[in-house]
């Protein structure tokens, strides 16, 4: 995920629009943060400050909300966001081992991003695809009925895609 500096102006305008859209509705903070995160990929301090000012709430309130909800992130995510479902159905079918394997291959833990910014790893709550347990999601793609042995191949696919892109 890019840092956003190059297109800062563009995004900043977009953010103004988002704030303006919700400014007069009650309980606006969370919907604004959702859209801001969609725009920036995460919620850096500068964005939080702007939201606080725009909605006329204290920065502490904004920060409090951002850190309370797991969907909001203070750190950038990888280009490929890996979510390992650790819901109960997946867990009893071995999702823990799947998670360990990914962490081992990428050498990162939940909430972290690889230094090159390609992958980030999160253990997530039930995605509701329990029929396919155990499940991981990489961005929008769902991989189900996994075995630990499937993992290296799946990750390799994304490495290959990256190699081709360069």
């Amino acid at each position, binding site marked *: 995920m890019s840092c956003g500096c190059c297109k800062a102006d563009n995004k900043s305008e977009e953010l103004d629009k988002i704030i303006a859209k919700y400014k007069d509705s009650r309980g606006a903070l969370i919907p604004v943060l959702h859209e801001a995160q969609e725009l920036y990929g995460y919620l850096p301090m500068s964005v939080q400050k702007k939201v606080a000012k725009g909605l006329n709430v204290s920065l502490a309130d904004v920060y409090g909300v951002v850190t309370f909800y797991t969907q909001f992130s203070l750190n950038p995510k990888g280009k490929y966001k890996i979510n390992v479902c650790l819901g109960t159905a997946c867990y009893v079918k071995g999702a823990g081992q799947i998670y360990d394997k990914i962490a081992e291959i990428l050498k990162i833990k939940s909430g972290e991003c690889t230094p090159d910014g390609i992958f980030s790893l999160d253990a997530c709550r039930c995605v509701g695809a*329990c029929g396919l*347990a155990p499940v991981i999601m990489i961005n929008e793609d769902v991989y189900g009925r996994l075995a630990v042995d499937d993992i290296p191949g799946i990750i390799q696919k994304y490495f290959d895609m990256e190699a081709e892109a360069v």
Partner: protein
Amino acid sequence: MVYRSHVLICNGTGCTASKAPELMARLEKELAAKGIEKEVKIVKTGCFGLCEKGPILVIYPEGATYCHVTPDDIEEIVNEHLVKGRIVKRLLLGDKDAEDVAKSLDNVEFFSRQYRIALRNCGVINPEVIDEYIAKDGYAALAKALTEMTPQQVIDEIKKSGLRGRGGGGFSTGMKWQFAAKEVNDQKYVCCNADEGDPGAFMDRSILEGDPHTLIEAMAIAGYAIGSNQGYIYVRAEYPIAVQRLNIAIEQAREYGLLGKNIFDTDFSFDLEIRLGAGAFVCGEETALMTSIEGHRGEPRTRPPFPAVKGLWEKPTILNNVETYANIPVILLKGADWFNTIGTEKSKGTKVFAIGGKINNTGLVEIPMGTTLREVIYDIGGGIPKGKKFKAAQTGGPSGGCIPASHIDTPIDYDNLIALGSMMGSGGLIVMDEDNCMVDIAKFFLEFTVDESCGKCPPCRIGTKRMYEILERITSGKGEEGDIEKLETLAESIKQGALCGLGQTAPNPVLSTIKYFRDEYEAHVKEHRCPSGVCKAMLKYTIISDKCKGCSLCSKKCPVSAISGEIKKPYLIDQSKCIKCGVCMDVCKFAAIEKK
């Protein structure tokens, strides 16, 4: 436009993940290639429930249900079934040789044992087309309420039906509405809890994705009953398909005048707004949910005052679960007396369960209250894979508990589950077999609550953490005498001291597993042994010398070269090097490796 065939493709989350969208694209292409795209209509539906067999595709008028369909099967289905009228038997679900395909499902107990009220339209209609819902008596209950009944009559009917909340607690829905109706205030709110936090439950998502209009209709009825003109649906952000379909449905309902001002030309007005959750389990708790809609950290408030008196923005508010609402239109149309005939004495109607874990037919089932756990697991669920032994079923998620094999014949209803130390919860039912360690499962749930505790009250914030630490010690082979008793004492104080339902129920998974599987805890603590072979730290892989043929495969595959020996003689594992990865056991062709 009259079509000669309808192809229903499940577009629930499970089947979408199993490539249903690709099937659609392929189907469109094949139909066009054969020039019959004007004769066959493709209908995107919600979940059929049997996710295990997905993606699922049903073709009418024959009623042929095809399962595990791959994009490459599409050509054959189009050629054979849709062009030549020949059923593709190899893909049929159920009896592949049934004379009449429509009957091929009759003996599939997964379907024949179910009684679908809340899920009545899921997998049957296209959730993105309001007319299809209306064709199934949709919005008729709202019309009846607004034009033929007073608000009090609506409440009386719901009370009489005996409907209890499907979101966990099982509180009488009619009573809740009555309390809110009694309040005199210029503004009241109707809220829907679609936060579905129990990991392993996805019935609400299925209704949202498969039949969003039923929720809209029911919330409008609730608005009429209590005197509210504004509703909020609080949906988890993890459910993008559900949110999208809800948005479409709300838009269509507004267009048809079923939301908005003067609905059915009465002076009743009602509108809805969607609010997205942001990934916090505690926001499923009613007061926390309202705090979150207000735009704050989703921390619970003390009750009383109850939401019916002071809820969202301090106004009288009712909050019901998605599945609860899905029952409302049917109850109004068919009457409380009809609803009353289904279920047990104190739990009326049906309950949707998401069965998952170690079970053959994972998926969603709706069964009459009072069905036994045995019927659910063996008849509907098709039993445990690989002939393993049933050990326990977990219900109620992180607030619930385990029901052991000795109670498998208990009829499932609110009160029976509570008596067993578990609870109905929102309907997640996770099956565990002999390979699951109950201490590990308890630790799993506690880790969840530690993570999700909002931190407002100390019993939950600190207490659950302490319990988790003890469990971690036990499962890593460092359990100490007295640990089990310590867990019990802590559990009792947390239950009594916590502010909201999250903390009050958090110890349940531990207490119920101690109650039924104390011997497993004792094996961990006293003998530093995990009887199911799950807790890694206590595991030992050994080679059974009688069975080992000395093929050397394990030794070659061992990532840390911990296995050595001479060809054709029994090999040996060096325990000091072994990292317990289990590769040797996986590769051994002679089942000569044992883990204990």
